[in-house]
């Protein structure tokens, strides 16, 4: 039987694939797709008798911290978080991210909330996955208007962490730290290198082994819909209702 896989489920599945080697994944505010991916990866790890801890901020139940709001940052700085997700109003070709605004700072034309903890997390978490659903020339820009956190740093900067992937609703890029450049590696169904090139302002390389995103298999979809959906509905009720009607 063919399952009708939703776009969000496909993205969740892509992200879950990136978490299989992790011991501790943390998810920040307003991130239902990364949150669902982390819980899915945790559930699949359990089946394989492996242990994956998931910390979802703004949730009480999936929040492992007891030392106040600073513990996320201390914990990450200690190297105890393997993967974290960041977004951006703008993301550029060197993986700089902008969460502050559009225009010439401080005189901005359009002000967004601010940089949150990105300016530390981007430096210390080994696998930062950039996640921005909107894939367009206004989000994936040549040069961000404001660097909330830089994609790369000089050699004399303490930086065990940094960008590893960028996922949009159209494509998955890997980030090549040495070339300071993204590498297009997976395409969503119906996308081509050409459509992605047209919708991306920055230049990127193309993986020799570029492929389509792999749909989640029946077992994963089963776990996602049966076990993960009700968990997600606890802290992202509107998202869970829209996608899974739970």
């Amino acid at each position, binding site marked *: 039987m063919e399952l009708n896989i939703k776009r969000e489920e496909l993205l969740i599945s892509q992200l879950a694939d990136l978490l299989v080697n992790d011991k501790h994944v943390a998810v920040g505010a307003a991130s239902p797709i990364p949150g669902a991916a982390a819980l899915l990866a945790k559930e699949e790890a359990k089946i394989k008798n492996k242990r994956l801890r998931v910390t979802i901020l703004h949730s009480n139940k999936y929040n492992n911290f*007891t030392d106040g709001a*600073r513990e996320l940052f201390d914990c990450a700085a200690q190297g105890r978080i393997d993967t974290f997700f960041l977004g951006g109003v703008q993301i550029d070709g060197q993986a700089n991210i902008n969460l*502050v605004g559009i225009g010439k700072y401080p005189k901005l034309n359009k*002000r967004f909330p601010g*940089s*949150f903890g990105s*300016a530390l997390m981007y430096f*210390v978490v080994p696998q930062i996955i950039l996640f921005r659903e909107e894939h367009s020339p206004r989000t994936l820009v040549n040069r961000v208007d*404001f660097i909330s956190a830089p994609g790369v740093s000089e050699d*004399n900067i303490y930086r065990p962490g940094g960008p590893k992937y960028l996922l949009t609703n159209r494509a998955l890029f890997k980030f090549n730290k040495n070339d300071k450049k993204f590498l297009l590696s997976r395409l969503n169904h119906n996308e081509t290198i050409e459509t992605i090139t047209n919708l991306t302002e920055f230049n990127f390389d193309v993986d020799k082994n570029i492929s389509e995103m792999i749909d989640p298999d029946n077992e994963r979809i089963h776990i996602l819909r049966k076990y993960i959906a009700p968990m997600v509905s606890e802290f992202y009720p509107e998202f869970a209702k829209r996608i899974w009607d739970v």
Partner: protein
Amino acid sequence: MNSFDKISVKEIVDEVSDGCLLGIPADYSGVPMQFTKELIKKGIKNLRLYCLPLTTIQGDMLIGSGCVSEIEAAAVTLGEFGLASRFSEAIEQNILLMKDSTCPALHAQLQATEKSVPFMPLRGVIGSDIQKHRKDWCIIPNPMNSSGIKDEPILLLPAVQLDIFVFHAACSDRNGNIQIGRRRELATLAHASKKVFVTVEKIIDEDFFENELSAATCLPALYVDGIAVAKNGAWPCALPGAYKADNNEIKNYSIAAKTKDGFNQYMKLLLSK
């Protein structure tokens, strides 16, 4: 003599002077909304807000009401209800000074005051435009030989002492100890503030220090200058462990606040209640 001073919300408001540096808790740590309404009624001016590390409706209302001249934060947002429009507009119109920061820096600056040291070092941040625009931050070559990286620049952040910090909590005990549970950033804010006032849902006739476990959930009374009872005092924000956010009301606010007129009408109604 009582072991703490029980006062009114208005008496807390009287302690806030124009131009002072006011500590603002995040939406998850007990937002003192009833106090904030009274503060706006008073017509306070030129507040400088220090958010640990962000503010939602509290900061947006104060900004929209013309009470704020400066804000230091990692974010101002209405979360799932979108942008904090009064904040965004004030920045776009260049009538509000924003000291853009990042969460761990806001924590570290208060921890410096907590320890009475002039600065705290922080890793990360270097190379960001946040750092480039913060003239109160400085970078030095790492003077500590044992660090490992050659010629590593180290970011130093100045100690920040708040003039006054106000938050809302579920309860205090009969001796004025405040139950804060896991929200230990509230202790950091209190330690780093000259004056601390708390609004609570209720005062309980217990001694939280009689039991090691309940003691562990407290901010000790010695850091608190006065406590006022304010029933439902975080509304429409959540009070962790007590009640959830009134999302309908926050949504209504987010829609109204999109325009200056809508905000003014909303606030007129709110303050007349």
